[in-house]
């Protein structure tokens, strides 16, 4: 696909296009001068009747095509950029990792957050490489940390870079995850990308919209939410010199999973998580990628040049 007007890597080379009007002027000059030369012949009244009129369009066509070829090749030389649609896998797994303060509880070794990170890393390592991964941090203000990508290195870095934040808003995080799914490569129609959400949390919802409402929304969008609960009932965190108990809300996570059509896991049966991606259907979408279209323009130039050459050959009186 060609973007118009295209941008160029070497726009200064476009100055050679100035030669084309010069060539047109030169051609017109030569045509006019040829009109002054030519052969004198006396008996043209008979000649005009007998000899078929030689049409000039092939001659002009050859010249026009040559100029078009020059135009296209000048473009190619200036290295234009275009937008190319690259086929990409749409299926996306959104990892939602809880980074609320409760996740620093050490009832799970080394801490709930580190355990969740390790689990996430293990998961994306096991995830077949064609699937996109997106990362959403779950806190009072959930945000998309990584738009859908197949780049595992970026995903690893994003997971390792997660920091603790205040508050927990599971519902909002699910909505954010659904929004992240929209960022997946566009398909041929506007249907949402097939995907799944893996929610690693201890579940204590403290803010935002209702998690059950978000789960119902995920259900209508056909996105199952697989939840993994972290922590034990004895978990605690020290906040502002005050020890607070942070038992995981396993009931909430189970409900979310069940409502959205997913499943609830515990940290122990992480090995069964392959079910997550096995249930996602694969779908290929297309992403626009900015790409140099030099070869395309050079191809146009070549095509024009070939047709111009054929037209020039056909001008020859002695066509075999």
């Amino acid at each position, binding site marked *: 696909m060609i973007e118009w007007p295209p941008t160029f890597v070497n726009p200064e080379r476009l100055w050679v296009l100035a030669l084309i009007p010069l060539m047109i002027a030169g051609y017109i000059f030569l045509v006019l001068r*040829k*009109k002054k*030369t*030519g*052969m*004198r*012949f*006396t*008996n*043209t*009244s*008979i*000649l*005009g*009747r*007998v*000899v*078929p*009129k*030689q049409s*000039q369009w092939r001659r002009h066509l050859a010249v026009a095509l040559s100029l078009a070829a020059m135009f296209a090749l000048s473009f190619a030389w200036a290295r234009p950029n275009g937008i190319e649609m690259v086929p990409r896998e749409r299926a996306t797994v959104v990892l939602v990792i809880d980074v609320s303060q409760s996740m620093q509880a050490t009832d799970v070794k080394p801490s709930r957050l580190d355990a969740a990170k390790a689990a996430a890393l293990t998961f994306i390592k096991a995830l077949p490489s064609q699937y996109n991964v997106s990362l959403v941090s779950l806190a009072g203000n959930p945000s998309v940390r990584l738009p859908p990508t197949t780049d595992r290195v970026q995903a690893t870095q994003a997971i390792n870079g997660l920091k603790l934040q205040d508050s927990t808003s599971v519902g909002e995080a699910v909505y954010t995850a659904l929004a992240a799914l929209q960022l997946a490569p566009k398909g041929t129609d506007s249907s949402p990308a097939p995907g799944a959400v893996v929610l690693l949390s201890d579940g204590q919802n403290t803010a935002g919209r209702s998690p059950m409402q978000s789960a119902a929304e995920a259900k209508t969008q056909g996105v199952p939410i697989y939840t993994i609960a972290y922590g034990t009932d004895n978990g605690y965190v020290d906040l502002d010199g005050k020890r607070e108990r942070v038992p995981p809300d396993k009931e909430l996570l189970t409900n979310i999973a069940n409502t959205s059509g997913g499943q609830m896991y515990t940290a122990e049966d992480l090995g069964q998580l392959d079910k997550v991606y096995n249930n996602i259907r694969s779908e290929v979408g297309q992403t626009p990628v900015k790409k140099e279209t030099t070869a395309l323009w050079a191809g146009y130039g070549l095509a024009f040049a070939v047709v111009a050459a054929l037209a020039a050959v056909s*001008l020859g*009186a*002695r066509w075999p």
Partner: protein
Amino acid sequence: MSVQPGFAPPPEDLGAVGSVLAEPKSATIPLHKLAPEAALRRLELTIVRRLEGFLHGDHQGLLPGPGSEANDARAYVPGQDDVRKIDWAVTARTTVPHVRDTIADRELEIWALLDVTPSMNWGTEGVTKRDLGIAAIATIGFLSQKMGDRFGGLIMRPDEIKRLPAQSGRTALYGLLRRMLTEPIVSDHTTGPYTLAAGVQRLARAERRRGMRVVVSDFLTPGDFELDANVAPEWERPMRELAVRNQVLAVEVVDRHEVEFADVGELLIRDPETDFERYVNTSDEAARERMDAATAAQRERVRVALRRAGAAHIQLRTDRDWVHDIARFVLAYRRTAGMLHQPPAGVTK
């Protein structure tokens, strides 16, 4: 060891070939090459029609010089006519100076009309058609150099007709030929009232004395693509008019490549007279054959029209020896002239 190339170098003198590309600047043949005067002395042009001079008999008379019998009045041409011959009565009536011609008795008066329209400035061999026409006039002039015979010329340009007065003697003939050769070349696309028909009409009406008339032209009418010999070309009627009183010899000059269309690839072809301009693929074998056939039909139409008009017809080609052709014509003409120049029914010989 030197390798001989398979082609010869082009000749030093290209002759009139340049006229194919641009109009020639001057005559392509010098005066002394127009006709071998000495060789032509023994030939004689047969004159079969009765000439003027009712007291003195036919052509084979002896009396020389301009006569004393008054003829028609015609406009005075400064530098050519004797002032003493001005007819004051006619001048006074018309307010235009007129001279009264006198009828020279019984000598032959030949008038040659030379077509110098741009289409005559063309030739692919040694000479252009115009210069071939002048050479034909020279040859016929030398053939008719009998005592007292006078030779005059009309140069028909598109814009004017120049009259070269009829005089006797070879010096006068040389003067006339030189005037014709040095006549400025008519540049292409010159417009004017005179076509061949108008020129012939002028010749028939202005020169009243009976005699011989030579019309030198290519007999091509610009824009006339008729091939049917039954359709009269526009000059046929004036020619017929001319032939009523005179013995007419039509010299048709053609170039070889007018008859055989040349294979020179694809190129722009322009007409020196009309605004015809067209790219023509001359390498098209079928088109060349059609062109040659059409040209042959066109020449046949010229021949038939001249025959109908009662004119003798000789075709000269720039690639042939015109003296040879004219000599052959003259020898055959001795036998056929009587038949050929039968005046129309009801007209005395």
